[in-house]
């Protein structure tokens, strides 16, 4: 049996997925990203191994992705999160040709060719206003835990618009809403609507014309998914584990490389 790990060293969380030779997920792990990527990835890989029921040294190939992909010394390959996100989403929803990946620091809109190869993409890397980091700041300001944000947003009756394109200025708008006595759910839904609007703009730039797969940590927030489904003109698919899709894509691509290398070694 072959064990291949995909490790997504993101700015917020480090996620690991372990698959077998049939691309079946055997285990998943996660750790909060800290300064030392080696320690963080060891924790993440360790928890994935535990859930897969294997030991760390049984992993034959490691593909890293995400912000910290160059930092894991024992990696076999590093792959961009765009390529991995596309492949992971395609493996789960083969008919979808669009992906929106909303992480802690970056939102990426990706269009895919048949087979899951990236056709084009747009990112918002320069500003946190369109990403999960923005929601974390808001939740801290509103004194609710990030885990509660998704459900609270669904309780909104009068979503408060947040028009600013800048995270810092958007916070000022939120302060105004609070001082005007607006409810927490209404403000949170406004933030979700704002993020959905930004994601839609990015998707349009890559030719959005059919269903989209919504992945990344922000896709775990029910209110965010609801905001996207309401705003987007095409169906929004959300996988069971949206946070781990990029790591899954890395594992799939890692498996292909591992098989190819094994074949090449056998021929040699």
């Amino acid at each position, binding site marked *: 049996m072959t064990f291949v790990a995909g490790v997504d060293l993101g700015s917020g969380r480090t996620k690991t997925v372990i698959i077998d030779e049939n691309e079946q997920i055997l285990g998943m792990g996660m750790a909060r990203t800290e300064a030392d990527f080696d320690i963080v990835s060891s924790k993440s890989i360790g928890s994935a191994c535990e859930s897969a029921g294997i030991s760390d040294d049984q992993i034959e*190939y490691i593909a890293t992705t995400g912000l910290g992909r160059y930092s894991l*010394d024992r990696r*076999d*390959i*590093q*792959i*961009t999160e765009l390529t991995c996100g596309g492949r992971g989403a395609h493996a789960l929803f083969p008919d979808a040709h669009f992906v929106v990946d909303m992480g802690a620091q970056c939102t990426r809109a990706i269009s895919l060719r048949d087979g899951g*190869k990236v056709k084009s993409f747009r990112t918002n890397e320069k500003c946190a206003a369109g990403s999960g980091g923005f929601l974390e700041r808001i939740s801290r300001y509103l004194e609710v835990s990030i885990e509660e944000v998704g459900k609270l947003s669904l309780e909104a009756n009068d979503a408060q618009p947040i028009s600013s394109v800048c995270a810092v200025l958007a916070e000022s708008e939120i302060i105004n809403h609070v001082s005007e006595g607006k409810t927490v759910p209404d403000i949170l839904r406004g933030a979700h609507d704002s993020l959905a609007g930004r994601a839609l703009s990015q998707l349009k730039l890559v030719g959005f014309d059919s269903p989209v797969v919504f992945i990344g940590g922000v896709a775990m927030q029910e209110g965010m998914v609801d905001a996207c489904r309401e705003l987007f003109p095409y169906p929004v698919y959300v996988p069971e584990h949206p946070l781990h899709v990029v790591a899954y894509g890395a594992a799939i691509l890692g498996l292909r490389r591992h098989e190819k290398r094994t074949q090449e070694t056998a021929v040699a």
Partner: protein
Amino acid sequence: MTIDEIVLHSRSLLDMKPSQVIKKTQETYPNVRGFAVFPVYAPHEIIHAAGLMPVGLYGAGDQLEITHADSRFQSFICSIAKSTLELFLADEMDGFVGIAFSSICDVARNLASVVSRNTEGIYVEYLHLPQNMASEQSQTYTRSEYERFRRKLAEHVGRPITDAAISESLKLYNEQRRLIRAIYAYRQDHPGSISAAELTCITKAGTRMMPGDYLTILKDVMEQLPQRPAHARDTVRVVVEGAFCEQPPIELIEAIEAAGCEIRDDDMMLGWRLFTGDVSEQGDPLTALANAYLNESVYCSTRHDYYHPRTEGLLARVRDSGAKAVLFTPAKFCEPALLDYVLFKRCLDDKGVPHLKLEFEEKMWTFEAPRTEVETFAESMLFD
């Protein structure tokens, strides 16, 4: 020293200005004086035989702001020319007796004259290296040019440069080049044992120390490589081409490697490892050096060899190193490299060898864009 210590030491030498390099060397060799060698090639052996320390002059990197040189050169001139001139104009060449330029491009030719006109007390030599490798007269001509260099240098330092001294230097540099070739070969056989960035640091720093000391370092590296833990990653094997004169920042090489490319072979620091084998240690040393330049040099965009086209040389380098792709890394505004790119591109396209062009300049400080380009290039090759 361990390899890690050697790399650190090399980096510290690369961070010095030329005058600081000489000052540092004088701590051990109080009477030593430097002689700068502008790329690509000058016969280091003659300089060393004159009792001088040949120092590779590869501009000033990020060590010096251009404040004077812009008034002598236009904006479309390569970085190395401007920062080299700046070193002279900013009095950063203390401890140097002279500098040798060779006929590599119009910019270098003019730079030699500009340096000569704008500096006092420094000997500026311009070597008219042959452009025609195939003529029957080439050897006679090259030897006579080396002889002229020897005579003028001897006049300048006030002592003769004997055949015996040149022969001794020739043996020293032969051994140096042999060890560099051996390290390159070992690295190809053992990917991950030493990175291209580390090796480039070492080869570049080698032009900033006494050749005898450098030999010790190279021997240490060769000896320790088998014990060094190596983790061979899954990469695209590439040849890096186009950086034979101005050198790419080490961070760019690191970015290329981090992005998933294994640099199997390259043309960096080419002038200091120009010969494919040992220069003959028998007979007249100047004739041996001339023969080596004409017949035993690797192909280079600054040499025209009718019988050995550069495109064939590049294809051979790709084939022999087991590379699957080529990264062109010319310096911005480098005419020889960019002109050859047209030929190389056509030839590689014909042979179905993927390639990518990445221009650089010595003061570039952000490497995210080239890393993304290389990573995308590598992924396009690795994944169907």
